């Protein structure tokens, strides 16, 4: 799976690092991202990295070049095979204007993406609340931990057929499945973030006689935000996988479904345009979240 947001290695800023995955043992299938510890002035930069920055051209240029090289390789390989059944980057590019001109493509894309947005919002709100409760109340943590980590490791795709029995072959099934798959990573990361509050913050709050809600929403939630952002990155990628899977399995109209249909009718270039759009969506949301973190949480590592 491609759903691991960058891990921001915490260079010791004088505070104990608690691994967000420790509480739930959920790292079995995926590494849960570790938000960076606040980067203190003493943050060590590996010597290699500094050297690279001085000599090599900028990162983005290298990455773009690598991407172009890969596409070129693909193109050459496809031509060498000489088969019409292998999509080529140039052919996909040529199909773009035509596909973009069809109304159905945008309807489908919007249906899928909107269900992801809706599902992630629902999952994030519910997940944040449960995560906060698990982080702050021992009884709640004790009760939910094993269930959450069991569900977290379960591929949502496996329950989609069951969901269609309960909810039918409808877009509601998609929304529920998407919300659920966004919910779980948010619960896990928020629980860890609201649990690993530096002790001194709590001492400060108690000294000034903070009430429980001040601690929950003023400190625990604030402390969990970088974890929450990492959780959101996971959640969006998972949600999209689930949305497409439900469309495949339940025939719910959307971009995933039309990709399936186009592939079956050998319109693979058109199908690829859809794939590219979904990729752009995930990459775009991830970039937005990273930007938000840098903008609003500048004391965290980059």
């Amino acid at each position, binding site marked *: 799976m491609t759903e691991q947001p960058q891990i921001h290695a915490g260079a010791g800023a004088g505070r104990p690092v608690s691994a967000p995955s420790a509480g739930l043992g959920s790292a079995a299938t995926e590494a849960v991202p570790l938000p960076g510890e606040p980067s203190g002035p003493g943050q060590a930069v590996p010597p290699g990295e500094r050297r690279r920055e001085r000599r090599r051209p900028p990162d983005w240029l290298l990455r773009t070049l690598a991407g172009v090289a890969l596409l070129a390789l693909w193109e050459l390989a496809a031509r060498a095979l000489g088969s019409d059944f292998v999509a080529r980057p140039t052919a996909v590019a040529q199909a773009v204007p035509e596909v973009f001109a069809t109304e159905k493509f945008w309807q489908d894309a919007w249906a899928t993406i909107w269900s992801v947005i809706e599902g992630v919002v629902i999952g994030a709100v519910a997940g944040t609340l449960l995560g906060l409760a698990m982080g702050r109340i021992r009884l709640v943590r004790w009760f939910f931990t094993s269930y959450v980590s069991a569900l977290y490791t379960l591929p949502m795709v496996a329950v989609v057929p069951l969901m269609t029995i309960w909810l039918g072959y409808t877009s509601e099934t998609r929304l529920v499945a998407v919300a659920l798959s966004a919910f779980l990573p948010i619960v896990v990361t928020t629980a860890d973030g609201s649990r690993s509050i530096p002790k001194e913050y709590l001492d400060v709050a108690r000294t000034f006689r903070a009430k429980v809600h001040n601690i929950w929403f003023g400190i625990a939630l604030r402390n969990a*935000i970088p974890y929450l952002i990492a959780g959101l990155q996971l959640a969006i990628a998972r949600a999209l996988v689930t949305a497409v899977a439900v469309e495949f399995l339940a025939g719910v109209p959307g971009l995933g479904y039309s990709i399936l249909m186009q592939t079956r009718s050998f319109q693979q270039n058109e199908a690829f345009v859809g794939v590219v759009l979904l990729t752009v969506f995930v990459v775009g949301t991830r970039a937005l979240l990273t930007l938000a973190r840098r903008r609003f949480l500048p*004391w965290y590592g980059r």
Partner: protein
Amino acid sequence: MTRSAGRTPTASTGRGASPGAAPSDAARVVVSQGRVNYGDLTVFEGIDLTVKDREIVSIVGPSGCGKTTLLRCIDGLTRLNSGTVTVDGKPLNGPMPGVSMVFQHFGLFPWKSVYNNVAYGLKLQGAPKEQIEETVPKYIKMVGLAGFEKSYPHQLSGGMQQRAGLARALAVEPQVLLMDEPFSAIDAQTREILQFELLRIWEQRPIAMLFVTHSIDEAVLMGDRVVVLKGRPSRIHEVIDVGIPHPRTRDTLSTPRFHDVKGHVWDLLMQEVIAAERQVG
């Protein structure tokens, strides 16, 4: 345990307090027969300590002797296992209004600006907006952070962060200020500057203050009395009246009296270290 008054006679010596103000003997904080234990480990016992209004009491003692624990008991963050703490005559039941603490690692919220960090205590008290807008800038200015209201802690040096921590503690205008090694995470030069600034601030509004430190110089410079904790479990080994009038300045550091008291505290602490070494050896 010796409970001699060191080299000087009774209390109330030397506290000329702020110019013109008559020394008041009202006891702000009284700890009596305080004991704390964690399981089998008794941290301290038999602690009797009184901090009067307008008095600075320094606490020194070897690492692990329970200085932080004692301060937390007075702040209401930790409970005594036996004995009592009263603040202004009221037995302690959790953190009390009028008691404020400055933390070793500052305890500033990274997501709040200096202004909002300083305003934190007032906001939790539900202070009216006008009061916050009047008080917060006043204390930011007092600690020398004017112009940095909008900065975030990560943009400040350690010394400046502790200035903000001090302003936050003072902004609620406490009767009792507790400080747990407030300057230990700060470089030596800045530390010296902050010591004298803290004394200036205290002289403007002298309140009861408890000051934990590992530095004997700092303990004697700041304190009207120096409490030496010692032993396992630790007890109050001696209370020394410093007997140097306020205002204290850099010149205080070179007075014979300062030198004598410092030497005495040093001897008391070193006995323990030497004894410990003998035990090991």
